[in-house]
């Protein structure tokens, strides 16, 4: 059934509803004052352990890469670049120049196009994105750096938590323990 318009009107206001409104507002304030339903994340003492499939930092598996360059071509922010590096084929022993992707996290917008367009699944996301670099140069990767995930300090220092959906409280913070 297609949507239908329904006309509504603002309910009028009288002395009684004013009084009732005040009482209701104060009551609910008092209710939350005595029973605060907090869900604040005390970052970085706690950090969210993100779900699988989160589009975080991108890592290259060099062995799978076929140097097609699709990732760089589809990158909307021009963060993924192709660099020319010599590559020695282990079978034939011949050295050729090949195009390899590297990423510049100063520009990356984490859209995940590169991961999704890669025909051999040579790129994958790691489920975090909160890393601080001291300089802009550090955020640029070379081919070596691109092959391992960036160092995640938050994980070492904080307690992993996860938010669970709840009917009463919306999101409930749960500690993640013993999950590896």
């Amino acid at each position, binding site marked *: 059934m297609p949507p239908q318009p329904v006309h509504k009107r603002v309910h009028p206001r009288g002395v009684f509803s004013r009084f009732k409104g005040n009482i209701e507002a*104060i009551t609910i*304030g008092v209710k*939350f004052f005595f029973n605060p339903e907090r869900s*604040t994340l*005390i970052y970085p003492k706690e950090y969210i352990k993100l779900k699988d499939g989160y589009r975080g930092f991108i890592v290259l598996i060099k062995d799978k890469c076929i140097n097609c360059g699709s990732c760089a071509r589809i990158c909307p922010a021009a963060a993924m670049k192709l660099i020319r590096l010599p590559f020695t084929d282990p079978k034939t022993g011949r050295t050729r120049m090949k195009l390899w992707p590297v990423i510049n996290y100063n520009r990356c917008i984490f859209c995940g196009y590169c991961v999704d367009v890669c025909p051999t699944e040579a790129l994958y996301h790691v489920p975090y994105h909160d890393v601080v670099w001291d300089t802009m140069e550090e955020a640029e990767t070379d081919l070596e750096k691109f092959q391992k995930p960036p160092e995640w300090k938050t994980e070492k220092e904080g307690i992993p938590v996860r938010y669970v959906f709840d009917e009463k409280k919306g999101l409930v913070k749960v500690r993640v323990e013993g999950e590896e």
Partner: protein
Amino acid sequence: MGALEILWKIISWPPLWQLIVLGLIVPLLVVIYILWFERKTAARVQRRIGPLHVSPKIAGGLQLLADLIRYSFQEIIIPKTVDKAAFISAPLIALILSILPVVGVPFTDKPEWFPIPMDYSLLVVLALVTLSPIFLIVAGWASNNKFSIIGGMREAFMITAYELIIIVSVASAGVAVGSYNIVDIVHAQTGWKLLGLLNPIAFFTAFVGVLLATSGFPFEIPESEHEVVAGAFTEYSGLMYGINMGAAYLKRMVYSIVLSVAFLGGWLPYTPGEGFVSGYLIPSIVIMVKATILMMIFSFLRAVYGRYRLDQALDLAWKIMFPLAAIGFGLSLAEAYLGIF
């Protein structure tokens, strides 16, 4: 008489005591507590945690001290275009004047501990509390900033709204008892004959009046952030801004003290005895606790209400609160006639 004894005599001279304890130490502690409470209560209602990082063990209690230190070390910027003398002096005078009314409040019924013994103390207090808003307007005017001037003008409008309400409704306490001496008013309330219970209308109007006067929610109009940035304080920075804000809270404290002696029975149910502890310390603590509870209620309302429009606040003050205050006054007269006190 040794030198120590003379020194002790000087220090324990009530007016000096009042100056140090009630004028400096107690307000600082109370304001720090109230600011902390205000932030924490808002956080609780809003499902947050509130200040935490400075001292997590006592729920961020030292956050305010940290803020204070930060304020003190911030650069005080005085723009070129302001009227310097007025710009600097207005907040200082406002600070002094906002705490001044305490001189009229006896915190006990033993005359030797009075700051200044007088027979019309309630009226004197009411007269003194009306002084400080002028300097807020001066501060706004001296800032030479459009938002400051608008904020100052709003404060000027608000004075016309709240002054009469507070005076009429607090004065009705004196009318009911038949004396404007605060000691008499408190004495008359012994035996749970609290004026706040016997004349709830006057208490309510006085409460709303204080909200209006101290720009507490829902009447936070003179410095409403989203229209006039910070009202009269827009150009102030660093400690000067802190002084301005502190003056507002001191004003609220003084009003709360007035309300708690006039309507909530002052140092009752405790009966002051002889000596410093029984005669002065405990009664004043009782009063401060009552005043603090009132201030906590004021702070709590911040979490529940938005702000009224200026004309609506004036409407409410003149069309509803002022007649109510007059009715409260009449109720007090009737109670005095019936001889309840």
